[in-house]
């Protein structure tokens, strides 16, 4: 595909339409740009944060501006795991399984304070932050977070995806 594009560019040059013209970029930047505008999220909604997730996922806030408006309900098709709501100890292995099923490259987004730290659930049932189970890329605190906070988080995640390059490996 790259050679085809080059041939096209060469033809354009020969046609004198863009002459003298050239186009340079880094491959990792181009791929990062593609990746950050096609965030396919897997919404793992377990608690009340789900209401706020539904709000932010609907048309009013228009997540499609960031290429993140297309939820996939299979972990094998998803890039970003949205963990939305309290994770209990009994739910933890399920979440880990979902994370393991996702294909690289993948990112994890902790939505709401319960996923970040356990929130006010300091008890026997609740996992004290999902980063004890899976590596987390982005924490969005709030109980629940406002849609503006979620959008801000997605923009920050985009910056992270853009910057990380194609050869980075995930730290487990």
């Amino acid at each position, binding site marked *: 595909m790259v050679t085809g594009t080059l041939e096209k560019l060469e033809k354009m040059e020969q046609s004198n339409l863009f002459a003298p013209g050239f186009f340079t970029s880094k491959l990792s930047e181009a791929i990062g740009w593609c990746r950050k505008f096609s965030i396919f999220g897997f919404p793992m909604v377990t608690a009340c944060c789900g209401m706020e997730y539904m709000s932010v996922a609907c048309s009013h806030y228009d997540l499609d501006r960031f290429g993140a408006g297309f939820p996939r309900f299979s972990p094998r098709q998803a890039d970003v795991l949205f963990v939305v709501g309290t994770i209990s*100890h009994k739910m*933890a292995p399920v979440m880990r399984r979902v994370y393991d099923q996702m294909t690289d490259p993948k990112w994890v987004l902790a939505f709401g304070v319960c996923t970040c730290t356990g929130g006010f659930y300091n008890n*026997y049932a609740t996992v004290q932050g999902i980063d004890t189970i899976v590596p987390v890329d982005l924490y969005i605190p709030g109980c629940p977070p406002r849609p503006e906070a979620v959008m801000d988080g997605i923009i920050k995640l985009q910056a992270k995806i853009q910057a990380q390059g194609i050869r980075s490996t995930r730290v487990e």
Partner: protein
Amino acid sequence: MNIIELIQNKFPDLVVSTHDQCGDQTVVIRKEGIVTLAKFLKYDPELDFNMLTDLTCVDYLKMNQEPRFEMVYHFYSLTKNHRLRVKALVEEKSPEVDTLCELWPIANWFEREVWDMFGIRFKNHPNLKRILLYEEFVGHPLRKDYPYDKRQPIIGPKN
């Protein structure tokens, strides 16, 4: 019909105390007689308690009350439309009560929950294992001496 009087006359040596507030009738009994009383409540045609609405436990640690635990049963009669609460006293030394699974099948899950949360064993229960928590969990979290911030081992994916 006064259910409390009926039970007191029928089982005088079983009943520890009773109270009745605004028709909300409660009988406190010794735990040894729970099955005998439950059978009577279910099969007596006048009482006909065909429904066990709730079964739970209370921990009275540091409440100046002996014994420590109390099983609480709520019975309801669909035909007679009356209710009764039965409490059975359970000591800390031998936290064991007879099961009511034979009489009301719903007691199976209720009793598993009480075992899970309070560590009360149920004699003759067909499947007494944890229902809400997982097998690796240590202790019984709704006991008042369970530290609220105790951390349990995190369990991994299972096949």
